[in-house]
Structures are given as structure tokens and as C-alpha cells.
């Protein structure tokens, strides 16, 4: 157990999921060489569905342990178990007797997924926010075992609102479990779709932020370019969100996106985004709002732009040898403006890499059938919101077990921290600056 604590002190938990009647903990430690596979360590804990809880000391594991508790495991010594996704178990909100409670949701005013937010406010200032999810729980993970690659991918693409990233992680984990790799042309096409998806998603975040502060010019311009970018993703993959594009062994098809158009959008964004983010109205509403400190991001294991806006310079693309000269976009402020700046700069970077992959496609087939066999593996892919994790064990062309973690699952705590001390009217702005996936958390 001391080795586990030491690893968690140095690094960050990646995933915690059942493994027979024990639980498997994956930890990422800093360091390692570019392209190395040894960045993660695994620990097998507990026995007979009981395992020692580490959530009191390492709060990043809290939601993982609560999810396992819902599935019949017992985290011995957990400081305060509550349901995460199941609504048939009793749930008690934390109460502050002298404060006013403001319940919001699950149905919200905008076009957004459902979730329940319980604010404890003093005047207009938020003292505490408690988030209750589970409304989007469809039992996706329990549907995957027993399925073949194609049927499983259909479900995996619905594990979050970033289908390309999830499908890419799942296809790669299947291939790696069999000790195989897809053709290099398919690898380039996968990453091109991933970068277009990232750019498209980030512009949605930014357009939503500008809408929330009433900056119609910025919202309209970004909405226009976002729609055009979605058209290019559609041309490349055949689907407006990139579904039905990836398969185990490669990709299904190769569309013909307009590279000149993508370059033109990139140039227009390079001129537009800095100007939008320097607007005094934008600065006045976004700066110093919804702060998340670096120490909090490290302790709670935040991922993706949320962590990078708080000074945690971690991006899985650093370890991908196919990304030449990649450096993460990092900001130190941790507020809404920092996250907006990370989204803006990452959008430009994503379009640059998308163009790189599409212009330097190596020759070769689009897909090959991997060899039969059995094995298990864990793969992580940097989606727009953070790292997507899939662990899969395959045997005779079928899934024996599959566990996935959407980056939103790790970042909801950031929203709770960000709004503490802020005015209640700023909650939608803070929420949109993370723009988390409810369905991705409620797998």
C-alpha cells in the first residue's frame, strides 16, 4: 500500500475499475521518454469486492470509488459515500442551515444536457455547489461485453460528445491488446479527424462563452466558422461528428476535405480570436472569474484544457511520436479567461496539425484486419476536453470486459471549485468555460 501512496503522491490517477473481484488502479507518473509506454503504473488492490479506500488522502479517487461502490464493491474507510449515477439509492444533499438553497435543473433553460445543481448562497455569493448527475445514465458500459468490434464501437462512439476520440482510443486499445498496429495512413487520418473534432469542439466552447456574456458579434462569427469547420469534418469522415469513421484495424473511408478552406478558416481565426479575447467587454466579464488553482488541479486530477489553464502542462499528444514538435498550450491564471485563451490557441494548433496530417498522408491501405487472439490493454487519447481512457480485454473477436473514462468525469469537481465565492449569476459562465459532458460522466 505504501507504494501505491507514493505513486499517487508523485503522479495522478488515470482510472480505477473492477478487475474480477479486485480493482485495478492506473497511475500516471511524470517523466519518461517521448513515445514510451511506461508512463503508467498499475496496482491490483483488494479482494472479494472489498478494497481499501484512498479517497480521504487522494480526493481525485473519490468519484471513482463512489462509482465502484454503486457497482457492488466496498471501499473500506471511504469518508462519505454517496451515489453518483444510480437514482434508486438514497441521496442526501449537504446542508448549511443558515444559507439559502437554490436548486437548478435537471432541465435547464438552454439547449444542454440535464444535471442537478444545488447552490448554497449567502446573498448572491455561492458558498458551495453540489452537483448531482446520473440523469444521462444509459448503462452503456454494461452493454459492451460480449459484442464484436463493430457493435462495440457503435456504443463507444456514444460514450461522450467526442466520438472520434472515444472511437480512436477504443480501436487502438483493441489493436494494442492483440499486439498490432493499424496502417500508418489510417493513423494519420485518425489524428486529422481528432484535430478537426478538437477545433470544432473548442469553438463551440468559445461561442457559448461569448453568448453567455452577451457578446453577439463574437458568438456569431465563431458560430459561422464552426459550422464551416463541421462541414470539413463531415467531408473527411462522412458524418457531421465523425461517427462511423474509425474501425478496429484502420478507418472505413477517406473523404476529401478542402485543405485550402481549412487553411483559410485558420487564417481568419488567427486574426479574429486575439481581437475577440482582447475586447474590454470580454476581459471585464471573464477575467478573475471562476478561478481554479494549480494545486487544486493537481490534487483533484483535472485533465485537458481545464488543467492546462491552471498551469498543469500535461497533454497526451506530447507522447505521440506522430505529432512533430508538439508543446502544450498552458496558462497560469486558472480563470474563465485563461480557459478561453487555451481554447483559442489550441484551436489554431489543432487546425495546423490537421493540415499537417492531411498534407503528409503516407501511402498504404486504409485498414487491415488485425490478427485473431486475445489480450488486454489500456490506451489514452487526448480529446478536446482531456484524456479519454479505455481498458479492454478481448478474446476470440469479442469484448470480455471494457471500461472507459470520459474526461468530463474527472473535471466536474473543477466546476464546484470554480464557482465558490463567485456570484450566482456567474455560474452559467463558469459552467460554459468547462462545458462538460453529462452523458460522458454518466456511462
Amino acid at each position, binding site marked *: 500500500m505504501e507504494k501505491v501512496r507514493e505513486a499517487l503522491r508523485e503522479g495522478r490517477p488515470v482510472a480505477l475499475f473492477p478487475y474480477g473481484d479486485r480493482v485495478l488502479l492506473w497511475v500516471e507518473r511524470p517523466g519518461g521518454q517521448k513515445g514510451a509506454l511506461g508512463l503508467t503504473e498499475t496496482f491490483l488492490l483488494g479482494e472479494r469486492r472489498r478494497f481499501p479506500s484512498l479517497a480521504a488522502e487522494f480526493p481525485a479517487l473519490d468519484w471513482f470509488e463512489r462509482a465502484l461502490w454503486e457497482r457492488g464493491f466496498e471501499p473500506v474507510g471511504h469518508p462519505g459515500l454517496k451515489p453518483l*449515477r444510480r*437514482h434508486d439509492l438514497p441521496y442526501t444533499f449537504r446542508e448549511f442551515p443558515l444559507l439559502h438553497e437554490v436548486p437548478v435543473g*435537471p*432541465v435547464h*433553460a*438552454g*439547449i*444542454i*444536457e*440535464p444535471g442537478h445543481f444545488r447552490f448554497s448562497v449567502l446573498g448572491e455569493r455561492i458558498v458551495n455547489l453540489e452537483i448531482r448527475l*446520473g*440523469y*444521462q*445514465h*444509459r*448503462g*452503456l458500459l*454494461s*452493454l459492451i461485453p460480449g459484442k464484436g468490434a*463493430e*457493435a462495440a*464501437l*457503435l*456504443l463507444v462512439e*456514444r*460514450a*461522450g*460528445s467526442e*466520438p472520434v476520440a472515444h472511437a480512436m482510443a477504443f480501436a487502438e486499445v483493441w489493436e494494442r491488446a492483440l499486439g498490432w498496429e493499424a496502417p500508418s495512413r489510417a493513423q494519420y487520418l485518425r489524428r486529422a479527424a481528432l484535430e478537426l473534432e478538437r477545433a470544432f469542439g473548442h469553438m*463551440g466552447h468559445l461561442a457559448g462563452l461569448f453568448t453567455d456574456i452577451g457578446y453577439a458579434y463574437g458568438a*456569431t*462569427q465563431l*458560430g*459561422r466558422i*464552426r*459550422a*464551416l469547420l*463541421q*462541414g470539413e469534418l*463531415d*467531408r473527411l469522415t*462522412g*458524418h*457531421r*461528428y465523425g*461517427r*462511423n469513421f474509425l474501425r478496429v484495424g484502420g478507418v*472505413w473511408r477517406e*473523404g*476529401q476535405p478542402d485543405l485550402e478552406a481549412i487553411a483559410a478558416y485558420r487564417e*481568419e481565426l488567427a486574426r479574429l480570436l486575439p481581437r475577440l479575447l482582447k475586447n474590454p467587454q470580454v476581459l471585464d466579464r471573464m477575467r478573475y472569474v471562476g478561478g481554479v488553482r494549480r494545486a487544486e488541479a493537481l490534487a483533484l486530477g483535472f485533465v485537458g484544457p481545464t488543467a492546462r489553464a491552471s498551469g498543469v502542462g500535461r497533454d497526451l499528444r506530447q507522447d505521440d511520436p506522430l505529432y512533430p514538435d508538439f508543446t502544450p498550450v498552458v496558462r497560469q491564471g486558472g480563470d474563465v479567461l485563461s480557459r478561453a485563451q487555451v481554447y483559442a490557441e489550441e484551436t489554431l494548433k489543432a487546425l495546423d496539425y490537421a493540415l499537417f496530417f492531411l498534407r503528409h498522408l503516407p501511402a498504404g491501405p486504409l485498414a487491415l484486419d488485425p490478427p485473431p487472439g486475445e489480450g488486454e490493454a489500456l490506451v489514452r487519447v487526448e480529446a478536446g476536453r482531456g484524456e479519454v481512457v479505455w481498458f479492454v480485454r478481448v478474446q476470440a473477436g469479442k469484448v470480455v470486459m471494457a471500461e472507459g473514462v470520459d474526461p468530463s468525469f474527472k473535471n466536474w469537481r473543477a466546476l464546484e471549485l470554480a464557482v465558490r465565492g463567485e456570484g450566482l449569476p456567474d455560474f452559467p459562465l463558469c459552467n460554459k468555460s468547462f462545458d462538460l*459532458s*453529462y*452523458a*460522458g460522466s*454518466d456511462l
Partner: protein
Amino acid sequence: MSLMHTLKVGRLARKLEEILKVPQHAFGYPLLKPAGLTPRAREGLIHLCPGEAFAEAEGIFSLDLARCVGCGRCALVYPEAVGEMRSLEVAVTRKEDLVQRVDLKRGGFLDPGPPPFPRTALRLPTLALREVSAGDTGLADSEVALLGNPFNDMGRFGFQVGASPRHADALLVTGPVSRNMAEALRRTYEAMPEPKGVVAVGNEAISGGVFAGSPQVLSGVDRVVPVDVYVPGDPPRPGAILHGLMLLVGRMTQRLVEGVLR
């Protein structure tokens, strides 16, 4: 497309007939070809489809558009048996109209008769919408939101999204209705004043889609609230959703009867 071009052109909004077309590079909706449905092709289609949209029973071969994920592989591998419908005017008022059925003995499509019209009480000049996601991954929600972008601009047709169900004329529901969300959906529907319509947006909202059979979902919006219009797609493109809204208010007609465009 720059701002100067926008100022010269005057506006970005696309014409309605443009919005209702399937883009040239994309696959539309599959269409069975009765003459090409050989036993080999039928068996191959049933095995090939990842969404399990094809079925055969008692001499009738059927294709359920509400289970089609839009990959287009059936038309690619069996072009003699499956064609393509390149229109987004696919919204229906009757769920059975999403299923193409071919009588293998007579070699033609079955004819179920004309579809029912939406209720005349919903023929309103403007429509305030409320959207509820009940287990959707977020993509159908995104498509509903994109109806309001500068290219689609549903506001010019009189549709806009309101903040409260108490001021809404129509409810757009996405997702297969997770069990945890069913009560909230029912309450949202009850909070709307009459007349009120419901549009099921996407395959999962129609019959569960890939989640059909999961114990955590109810597999379709019509199990919780009455549905006036169904819009198939995975997720449906904005043009298909717009056709659904136009169908709801009686400004456009239903073209898909028994799964075939008429």
C-alpha cells in the same frame, strides 16, 4: 468567407431547399430496391448492418430507418439491393412510416395508406420551443442548437427556443429517455400549456437506437409523453429537424410513407 463578403452578400442564411438537401459528399438515408433483394443479399445485409436495421419475417423484408446509423456500408457493399434517398424531408407523424417493408412474393413495397396530419391546433405562425435531453450523448442537442446558427437561422421561419416550458408550444426531446430522466421529462411536458406538440429528435428518441434493450433506458420518447413528429437520423441533420418543425405546424407535408419518399 470573410466579413466583407458577408456585407456584400447581405446574409449567410441558406435557402430552405438548400438546407433540406443531403450534402453531396455525405450518405443520405438507405432505400431498399425490391428487385435486387436476392437471398444472398438479404442475408448479407442482416449480418452487415452494425445497427441491425434489416430484418426478415414471414416473407417481408424490412429496413428500419430509426435503427440506421448512417454509415452507408449497405449501399456500398450491396448496391443492387440498397440505394439512397438524398433528401432531409424525412420527418414523419406515424412511427410505422420509418420502416420500409418489401413483400418478397409480390416484389414491391407494402402500402399502408396516407399518413395522419399533425393536429390542426398546432398550426401556429410562430413556435416557441423547449428542448429536453433525456439520455442523449449531446450530439442531437448540438444539432438542435445549430438550427439557430447564421446558416440555418430557424428564426426566420418563426421558430425559437424559449427558456421555460410554461411559454413553449413544442417540446424537442433527444435521447432514449434514461430511467433517471423520465420523471423530469414528464413534468416538463405537463408544465407546457395547450396546445403543445412533441418532436422526437434522433433514432434514440424514436425507439432507443443502439441503447434499445438496456435496462437503464425506456427506449423511446413515446413511452413517456405522446409524440407528434418523429425525426430519424443519428443524429438528424439540421435540415431534417427543420422539416420536422415545419411538418408540426402544417407548413410542409410528410414525404416519407412506409419509409419511402413519395
